[in-house]
């Protein structure tokens, strides 16, 4: 392509706009990092006045930070395992057999992926009271799994459709049942896809604040999402440093998982199957 002066001016202008957008997007993020390592942090982004690990050490306290992190791991991890397992089972007949109700079923699943779950939280609270599930970590885990399940089924079916039927037919000839060939042939071939579904469920459950905030009462059972919020509520002027450190601690697992999965699948993994 020929580089004319006009084109160079245009390119310079585009770079300027992109640089400005990146700067505006980076500005709020910077505070999290500078405040986390500044023992005298305020609400401004500035070079740490008194750098040190005190903020992080303060939130690594068992009740403040570690227990909520463990609870979050249990809730989000459990939800991910349940969701992936049920989605893999459900996707098999949807992907392999001709069923009369398949289209309407998938239609409902797709419809459910779009519903704003916030809207049902008040009735879910009331329902949990009726079922005596309030303050139950297992009940909360099941609900988190259920909210991710439509999307998990949709994605898993997409991945399963890409596993060639011919491989499975060989197993059938050898006398394997549908479930056996699912476990021994299909699932091993779609492990990358399943891990994406699992990571996606984990990330959305880990980041969910409203669900544990309404369904769990005991501070000992609260996950990190509620722990960091409670910390925010208590934080006086002198606690912004620890709040930022807690935020980074709480973000770390999500960021790590995102980087691993996006590196393997090219960054747009959450969009697989959702937007075409």
């Amino acid at each position: 392509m020929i580089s004319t002066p006009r084109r160079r001016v245009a390119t310079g202008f585009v770079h300027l706009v992109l640089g400005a957008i990146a700067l505006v997007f980076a500005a709020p993020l910077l505070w999290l990092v500078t405040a986390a390592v500044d023992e005298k942090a305020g609400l401004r982004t500035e070079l740490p006045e008194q750098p040190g690990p005190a903020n992080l050490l303060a939130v690594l306290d068992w009740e403040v930070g570690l227990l909520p992190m463990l609870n979050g791991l249990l809730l989000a991890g459990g939800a991910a395992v349940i969701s992936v397992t049920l989605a893999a089972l459900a996707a098999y007949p949807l992907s392999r057999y001709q069923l009369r109700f398949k289209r309407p079923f998938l239609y409902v699943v797709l419809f459910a992926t779009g519903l704003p779950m916030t809207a049902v939280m008040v009735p879910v609270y009331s329902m949990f009271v009726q079922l005596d599930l309030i303050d139950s970590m297992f009940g909360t885990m099941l609900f988190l799994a259920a909210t991710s399940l439509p999307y998990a089924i949709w994605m898993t079916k997409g991945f399963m459709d890409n596993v060639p039927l011919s491989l499975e037919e060989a197993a059938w000839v050898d006398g394997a049942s549908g479930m056996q060939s699912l476990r021994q042939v299909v699932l091993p071939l779609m492990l990358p896809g399943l891990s994406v579904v699992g990571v996606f469920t984990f990330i959305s459950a880990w980041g969910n604040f409203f669900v544990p905030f309404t369904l769990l009462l005991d501070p000992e059972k609260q996950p990190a999402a509620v722990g960091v919020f409670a910390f925010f509520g208590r934080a006086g002027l002198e606690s912004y440093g620890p709040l930022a450190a807690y935020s980074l601690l709480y973000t770390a697992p999500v960021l790590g998982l995102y980087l691993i999965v996006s590196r393997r699948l090219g960054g747009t993994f959450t969009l697989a199957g959702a937007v075409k």
Partner: protein
Amino acid sequence: MKRVVPLVPAVVLLGIFLVGPVLWTVYLSFTNTALSGAAARSPQFTGLDNFARMIEDPALLNAVWLTVVFTVGSAVIGQNCLGMLLAVLLAGRSRLLRSAVGGVVVAAWVLPELVAAFAIYAFLNADGSLNAVLDWLGLPGQNWLYTAPMAAVVLANVWRGTAFSMLTYQAAMSDVPSDLLEAAQMDGAGPLRRFWHVTLPTIRRTVLSNLLLITLQTIGVFALIYVLTAGGPGEASQTLPLLMYEQAFVFREIGYGTATALVLLLVGGVFAAVYARTLREELR
């Protein structure tokens, strides 16, 4: 029949925890159920009372309007247009530029909702970085979360959600046939006309489903607004999810709060149905 057995666990879980609450929403919104007191022990069926009360409730009207402002402002206009702009400007740039700019935008999106809210809270606070920058430029600062709460939450949601639209449009644009673009260029079409007459018509289905998805994600936003303004000052940024929360858990009127939730659920249901229909060709 044996073939559908693997579907059973998923159907049971969805039935109890998704279909159940939706049906329960409809039932509760016709009762005077409360969190405590006599109406908590034995709720009465009150017919259309909640809805009659809603129609005359200025708080509900206010919340519906603010939800529309929030959704149109932050999702339909903000995230959608900025995401499209970024996808267009980043197309064909160097790898370094793409990953640097794209990385910063995606970082705001990968953060858990609460952490994103804290970052924006610090940024827009009276003692925050925005005022520091304005001060440095010789401009007066203010407590943005208090003086301009809707603008603050709209900006926060644009900041947090733009990456989704950007990634969606980047993926869609990579599927636009390059020979079409080259042919248009040969015919003398500039970048703007190529975008308008070639790229946009090719990706219009993606634009539609993206708009539906971000609308659905935005009407239910709770934590971001709850941290930034808690719906205030007064009711100045009280969207439907925040009103619903206040009615149910602060004023302890579960029945009335659920009636509000039903409004949100119905609006979401309409958008979700349209969304599912746009993808119906994939229901094989």
